[in-house]
């Protein structure tokens, strides 16, 4: 019997998720022994046409990381969906939209303007920005379309499972691979991490006072962070209460608060709104002016609360006249 075929693909991502696969260390050898990797652009030389040539549903499972922000990415994931039995959204960007999703606070034009014209290190007096088509020496060159809006994977194709994390920790990846190899699969649509928030596993949870309220908000660099104590109890924003657990608290152990890469639990629709709700609730100030003062100390609330989940939020993106209905 032939070994199950496995594919990896990356979209709008940083490459960290590819590292996560490599981070399996010696376990990667077991994986390679058990499966046949048919597509992995970052590591192995395969072409699009190789995939196109494969029969439909011939790939057992494809792991896709990264958000969708280019037409090429959309085409590729649609192709892979056709050829694969299972699609796993791998990492925060595919799962939620991730950091690239923060682009949804702008549109294509403002992003191009910033990236290609106004950054201090850019010298572009002619104001050249990427074009989908350009003719050079009589020959037409094309580039994929850059969408106004960044999407998470399941907004483009049907996704079977989600592996959360920026990047997903090796143990979760290994568990997922084993489950697929052994055919012990949970219901479709499951996020392959426990459905409770991070505080459930956080060692600092014990240090919370009986009634946790805060009067002021600090950023991590503004105080000496107590390495044992709950960040919120120290007045530092920690997304842990509104974030799914399973990450192994790597940030917490490095004395940095949770930033929310695992996304919300199943019951929560909008991670940012929910965290906003609880944070505002525990700020123990009742005078209107005083409230405003405290709220002013929260730097970039939208970017903080929606750092990984903007394309998954209820609003998905900023509403702008330039972005017409459903336009990419």
């Amino acid at each position, binding site marked *: 019997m032939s070994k199950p075929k496995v594919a990896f693909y990356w979209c709008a991502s940083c490459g960290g998720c590819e590292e996560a696969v490599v981070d399996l260390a010696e376990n990667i050898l077991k994986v390679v022994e058990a499966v046949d990797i048919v597509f992995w652009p970052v590591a192995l030389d395969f072409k699009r046409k190789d995939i196109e040539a494969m029969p439909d549903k011939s790939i057992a499972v494809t792991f896709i990381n990264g958000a969708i922000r280019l037409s090429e990415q959309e085409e590729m994931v649609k192709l892979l969906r056709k050829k694969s039995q299972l699609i796993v959204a791998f990492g925060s960007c595919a799962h939620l939209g991730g950091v690239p999703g923060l682009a949804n606070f702008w549109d294509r034009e403002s992003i191009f303007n910033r990236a290609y014209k106004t950054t201090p290190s850019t010298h572009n007096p002619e104001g050249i920005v990427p074009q989908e088509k350009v003719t050079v020496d009589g020959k037409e060159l094309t580039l994929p379309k850059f969408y106004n809006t960044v999407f998470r994977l399941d907004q483009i194709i049907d996704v079977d499972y989600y592996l959360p994390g920026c990047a997903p920790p090796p143990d979760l990846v290994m568990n997922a691979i084993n489950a697929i190899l052994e055919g012990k699969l949970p219901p479709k649509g499951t996020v392959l991490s426990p*459905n*409770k*928030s*991070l*505080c*459930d596993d956080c060692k600092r*949870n014990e240090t*919370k006072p*009986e*009634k*946790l*309220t805060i009067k002021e908000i600090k950023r991590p660099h503004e105080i000496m962070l107590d390495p044992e104590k709950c960040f*919120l109890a120290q007045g530092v924003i920690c997304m*842990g*209460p*509104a974030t799914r*657990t399973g990450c192994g608290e790597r940030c917490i152990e490095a004395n940095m608060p949770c930033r929310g890469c695992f996304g*919300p*639990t*199943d*019951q*929560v*629709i909008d991670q940012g709104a*929910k*965290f906003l*709700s*609880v944070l505002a*609730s*525990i700020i*123990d100030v009742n005078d209107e002016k005083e409230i405003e003062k405290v709220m002013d100390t929260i730097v970039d609330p939208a970017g903080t609360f929606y750092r990984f989940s903007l394309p998954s939020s209820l609003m998905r993106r900023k509403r702008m006249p330039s972005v017409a209905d459903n336009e990419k």
Partner: protein
Amino acid sequence: MVKIKINGKETKVEKGTTILKAAEKLDIKIPTLCYHPLLEPYSACRICMVEIKIGKRNELVTACNTVVENGMEIFTDSERALKARKMNIELLMARAPAAEPVKEIAKELGVEKTRFEIKDPNEKCILCGLCVRTCEQVVGAKAISFIERGADRKVSTPFGEPSEDCIGCAACAYFCPTEAITVEDLDKREVIHDEMILGPNSAIRVPIRQAVPMVPFIDEENCIHFKTGNCKLCEKVCEKEAINHDMEDEEIELEVGTIIIATGFKGFDAKKVPAYGYGRFKNVLTALEFERMVNASGPTGGQIRLADGREPESVGIIHCVGSRDENFNEYCSRVCCMYSLKFAHIIKERTNAEVYNFYIDMRAFGKGYEEFYHKLLEEGVHFIRGRVSEISDVALTPEEEGKLIIRVEDTLVGTVRRIPVDMAILSVGLEPNFGSDEITRMFNLSCSQDAFFLEKHPKLAPVSTAADGIFLAGTCQGPKDIPDTVAQAGAAASEALALADKGKFELEPVTAEINEELCSGCQLCIALCPFSAISYNKEKDISEVNEALCKGCGTCVAACPSGAAMQNHFRDEQIIAEIEGILSV
């Protein structure tokens, strides 16, 4: 036992008895000045001289400190004894000519004047040392002593300066037989026996005559024993041995199903209105003080008297002191109009005084109240409609001399009037009691704007609170008179009993719940609950809602960052479906 004979009468007394006590038993009086049964005898005044005979020997001794012996014969009024006493009283008359007890004894002995030189005609001190012994033996403060010698001997504090050891108990003055000692409040030194309303106070007392149970208590703050560790005189004199200074306040924990809060009110502090002169003028009284005065068991036996003991010829009663006043309390205290009318009636009944009522509006709203008001109008009580601006003692005319002048705008006549009276009564309003804040927190109650406890619903649940099983009775909920209080207390009691009888109470269905499977135990909801209904279960590492305490506001549900909390009947899915529904067209 010892056999003795006093003035020819034979008697047997216990060994160790003094002659004075033995004579007392036979009802034979021996005059004394420096003797006090609670103190060691001192034989300083030597007025108790008696003649005794033991065997063949006759001699003069002081009765207060001479112990009887077997076969002793005592003559309390023998010629020799009387002669000695007369001589001694003459000496004391020269020493302390102003001392009344000395004069009395001299009169009894038939001594009219002293043959010795009088140094100071105003002197009262007989150097009996009762005060010094009291301060040392009873109080334990040792603040005073004898100083100098011979003719210059006197009682004083060290160097005649106010003593730091003095606790201001005034026991020395109390024990002084000749009123030679007066106690003054120097340097605002605490005088522990401060005056109670219209009468002296004591550190052991029955709170009021109508107290139930009618048992005295020790006021620890004012009791000498709790200041110096000495005294305990009350313990010594109580024959039933009922007094025990070692008893302590106990905190008793009771498990109960229902609670009635009836913490009452406190009277408005009349000193907050300086223009009315309360505290400055002796004849400006608060309603409560006047109430105490007209009480038949009060200090004056119910007689209405001015500070100097005269009967007043005119009395002013000022309504709405601290009530219906933007500067203090905006609300009407409800009871003042009627008790003021009662005062007017009592004054009319017991004296011939003219009575003036100064009112803003007459609020005689209860059953029979309006009729009572009319009765008073017929009794000739004066009613002046207007708020009093001030009470002063500055007389502008001869009639005002020595009177309190009440300045008021008579709004019915439209003129400012000055009414001279002998006594002014301030009808103070009702305010929330001390410690209301603490009770608010303890029972999770709410207060209305005027700081009285808030009922659940002003019309439909007037004795209930937002906390189930906790009820309100009386003025803690708002000013009310006795009939209303009795009615409300009855209602609160029956509500409490009904609940206790049932043994369970119905919960509002709209409560919050936390899904054990989903809760991460982040505990952020706990601080958000104003009813302390959420607690952390350490074993399970989850937060739990106590449904009996939860009122179902849903604040925790809106905040629960992992979506583990839900509100029955207002679940997220339901509200979201509502949003979708109402926006679908």
